[in-house]
């Protein structure tokens, strides 16, 4: 039987030092709030791990999640791990195409029954003809792939909560994976795209400890989605002082003041963007001058305009309020007139 490379072999072949790898393991372990000794155990277990079988299904998606993970500006342990695990089946990345590709998926499902992970990006259309792969509808492929899966990890908001395909008017009647798969453990790693470290963190924990991380009420790992971005935002002091950018090119914007009035959704968004940041800790949307879109939250695309602040009422114009004023005035005046007539009538009767 041919020698199957371990993850350690892959890292060494790519010139990743043991020091860098241990750093990754301690960061991941501490982010996941695992005990101090876990980092070493994770390093040992990870480096000895042989390629786990992972089936990556891409449904109604934009490939942004894959891009986020693979297009880092330099080879990182995150994308090396991704490369290491993602070879069984991935529409975008695998070399095979057509029947050979589908055959690889079926073989992986059969050989690793009960052990493989299913990673999904993209939502599933209930109008099944809207999205098919090799003539198989997304729904059928998902159900088939999950039958013998150990767990499902939803990569990105589309598979976790429906994301943009579910946005009104939802022409494909899309649903998130959790609406179809009910009998398997599901971890949601939402974001548009999700943070690479959140994806690899979940996978690293599963590979080393054999269990999935603690989840919040929306099925997200608490370690990465337990913090409110507004609470962690470096612009928070400007919010407290009442210093807001009013437009994207005013003095406040240039001085880096709070973007609350420009529609920043950080107060209602839970993600690790503000403290882990993107591109190896370089920046995140708010730091680059744009408010948070709330992309890791369910229904973020229908939460109101991108540039409408969190405090905005969502009920269009005041037409109905005007109508209510008129109706109230008419009813009140009508009641008073009736009361006056009745009173006058009583007076007449008394007089008569």
């Amino acid at each position, binding site marked *: 039987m041919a020698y199957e490379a371990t993850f350690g072999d892959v890292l060494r072949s790519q010139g990743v030092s043991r020091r860098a790898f241990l750093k990754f393991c301690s960061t991941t372990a501490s982010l996941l709030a695992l005990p101090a000794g876990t980092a070493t155990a994770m390093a040992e277990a990870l480096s000895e791990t042989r390629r786990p079988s992972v089936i990556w299904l891409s449904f109604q998606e934009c490939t942004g999640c894959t891009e986020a993970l693979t297009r880092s500006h330099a080879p990182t342990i995150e994308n090396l791990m991704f490369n290491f695990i993602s070879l069984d089946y991935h529409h975008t990345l695998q070399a095979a195409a057509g029947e050979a590709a589908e055959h690889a998926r079926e073989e992986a499902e059969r050989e690793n029954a009960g052990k493989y992970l299913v990673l999904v990006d993209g939502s599933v259309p209930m109008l099944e003809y809207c999205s098919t792969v090799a003539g198989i509808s997304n729904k059928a492929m998902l159900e088939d792939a999950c039958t013998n899966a150990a767990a499902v990890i939803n990569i990105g908001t589309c598979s976790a909560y429906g994301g943009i395909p579910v946005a009104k008017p939802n022409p494909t009647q899309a649903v998130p994976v959790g609406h179809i798969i009910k009998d398997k453990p599901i971890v949601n790693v939402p974001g548009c795209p999700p943070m690479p470290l959140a994806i690899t963190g979940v996978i690293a924990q599963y590979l080393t400890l054999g269990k999935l991380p603690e989840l919040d009420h929306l099925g997200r790992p608490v370690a990465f989605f337990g913090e*409110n971005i*507004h*609470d962690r935002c470096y612009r928070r002091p400007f*919010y*407290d*002082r*009442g210093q*807001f950018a009013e437009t994207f090119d005013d003095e406040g914007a240039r001085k880096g003041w709070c973007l*609350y*009035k420009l529609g920043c959704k950080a*107060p*209602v968004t839970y993600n690790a963007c503000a403290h882990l940041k993107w591109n190896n800790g370089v920046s995140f949307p708010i730091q680059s001058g744009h408010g948070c879109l709330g992309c890791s939250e*369910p*229904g973020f695309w229908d*939460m109101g305009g991108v540039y*409408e*602040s*969190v*405090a*905005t*009422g*969502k*009920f269009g114009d*005041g037409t*109905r*309020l005007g109508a*209510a*004023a*008129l*109706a*109230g*005035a008419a*009813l*009140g*005046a009508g*009641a*008073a*007139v009736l*009361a*006056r007539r009745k009173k006058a009538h009583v007076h007449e009767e008394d007089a008569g």
Partner: protein
Amino acid sequence: MSLLEFARGPAIHASLIILVAGIFLRLLGVLVLTRGADLSRPRDAFGNFKGYRTVFSRAWPSSEFTTTTIYQTVMAYVFHISTLLVVVAIVPHIEFITSLTGLSWPGLPNFIGVALGTIALASLIALILRRLSNPAVYNSTLGDYVTWIIVALPLLTGLMAFAHVGLRYETMLALHILSAALLFAYMPFSKLMHAFWFIFSRAQSGLAYAHKGVRI
């Protein structure tokens, strides 16, 4: 639909419709019901003017009552002013009003908003304590306590939401908006209508007394 979406969408919209319709219903329902003119000759030629003056002169108790009423007068002023400022001068509220009316104005820093909200809540507690300790003076009904709770809830939930304490922020924000919606819907049909009635009731008293030549 999440709780927050429900709160800042249909719930607050429905409550504002009830508020607007209710205020007009109550105002016109009473004001159209005018009493007949007093045909007697007024004892004071400037009676009408003095009557309207009462709207302002009754904003503070007569000196004879200062000692007995100073506590609730001061507390009531503190409560009303701080609550008004919190409602119209903190940025999230201005953003909401702007989304509804298009009008906008500069807001207070949020830490001042927190201070004002805290003062408003503290003064409201001070007022209910006096009410509870002087049952013979107030002769309270159940409605008085319900009204107090409905007024206190938006202040409490607003402070909690702002400080990110208690439940998650989006839930606290939704509860804050829902408590405000409850206040809006309740306002026209409760003693909270004094926000409008105080002008008419004071003017009516002033006119009636001035007509009879009574100095007030």
